[in-house]
């Protein structure tokens, strides 16, 4: 394995839980933050990191997660604006070198890329895959 990273994952929905568990299995140190205790409790046994039940948009909570030491922060709640706020706090206040945010609305994407947040837009990614699949199948038929 390569160097172990310190990763903070915000949001323990399907995406956050999956990413956090995979990273944990790969041997990285992972802290996952979510407002809801039941979501944190549902994490698989393969997750060996820390769980914090709190609101990650509060600076204190990221402090508690030792964000100043993190290599990566992934904001993956189901709310675009929460993700963008957490990602920016991580970047500007805690100087986390690599911050990523899930943002559903493609119209919000470009501006936050410019502000140094790596924006992952599932809507755009899915659209591209659909189009790609259509193009491939139509070329196959041709």
């Amino acid at each position, binding site marked *: 394995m390569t160097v172990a990273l310190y990763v903070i994952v915000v949001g323990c929905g399907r995406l956050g839980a999956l990413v956090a568990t995979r990273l944990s299995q790969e041997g990285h140190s992972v802290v996952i933050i979510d407002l809801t205790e039941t979501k944190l409790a549902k994490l698989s046994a393969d997750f060996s990191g820390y769980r914090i039940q709190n609101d990650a948009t509060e600076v204190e909570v990221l402090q508690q997660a030792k964000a100043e030491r993190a290599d990566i922060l992934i904001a993956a709640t189901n709310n675009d604006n929460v993700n963008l706020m957490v990602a920016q*706090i991580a970047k500007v*206040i805690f100087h986390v070198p690599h911050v990523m945010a899930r943002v559903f609305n493609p*119209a919000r994407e470009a*501006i936050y890329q410019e502000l140094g947040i790596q924006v992952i837009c599932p809507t755009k990614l899915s659209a591209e895959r659909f189009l790609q699949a259509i193009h491939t199948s139509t070329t196959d038929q041709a």
Partner: protein
Amino acid sequence: MKVLIIGSDKTSYYLTRRFIAKGYHAVMITRDAQQGRQLARKLQALVVVGDGTDPLVLDEAGVRQCAIVVALLPHDHDNLIACQLAKEMFGVPRTVALVHDPENEEVFRQLGVSVAVSVARLLVQVIEEQIGYEAIINLAELAQGQLAITEVVLLGDAPAIGQHLRDLALPDNALVAAVIRDDGAIIPRGETQLQLNDHLLLVTRPDNHGIVLSILMGATA
């Protein structure tokens, strides 16, 4: 001057009404369609129904021509994003956000919002001014407690207000070292006249500290 207000509560409505009364060209974005129709009638203003944190909705509301955007939504993160989009995407020069978490006043400023206002902090400030709490702030104790530096605020009916420093019968071994007034600082002399809301920097000894406070501030001290 064009102003955009984003919010669905009574405060947003009254704020928009105030701006219109003052002659501004006010536009409102609300999430609630029914309220939107009502407000458009009552305010005779453009009311756009939609998510004020969506660039397309902001654009539709004419955010590009706005001199100021005010975000009064119930969640801090929504107010942050609305202000940032207005500024970064549409070039709005001034943005104002309501914040619920007082810590976000500073966070939002660092993230580019012109002004962030915490109602909780404002209320605490108003209440403290009313009850005179924190009118005395102990800044430092020096020389093993033999010397204290204290900041006091001259509020309401403090007897020192309007007095020249030389006319206050301050005891020996006590000094009004500085007067902070309207963000400026004065090193006072005998002829300096004290005013309401002056912040005084006092140097006192334990034996005269209480006397000095009661001369300056009266019974509240």
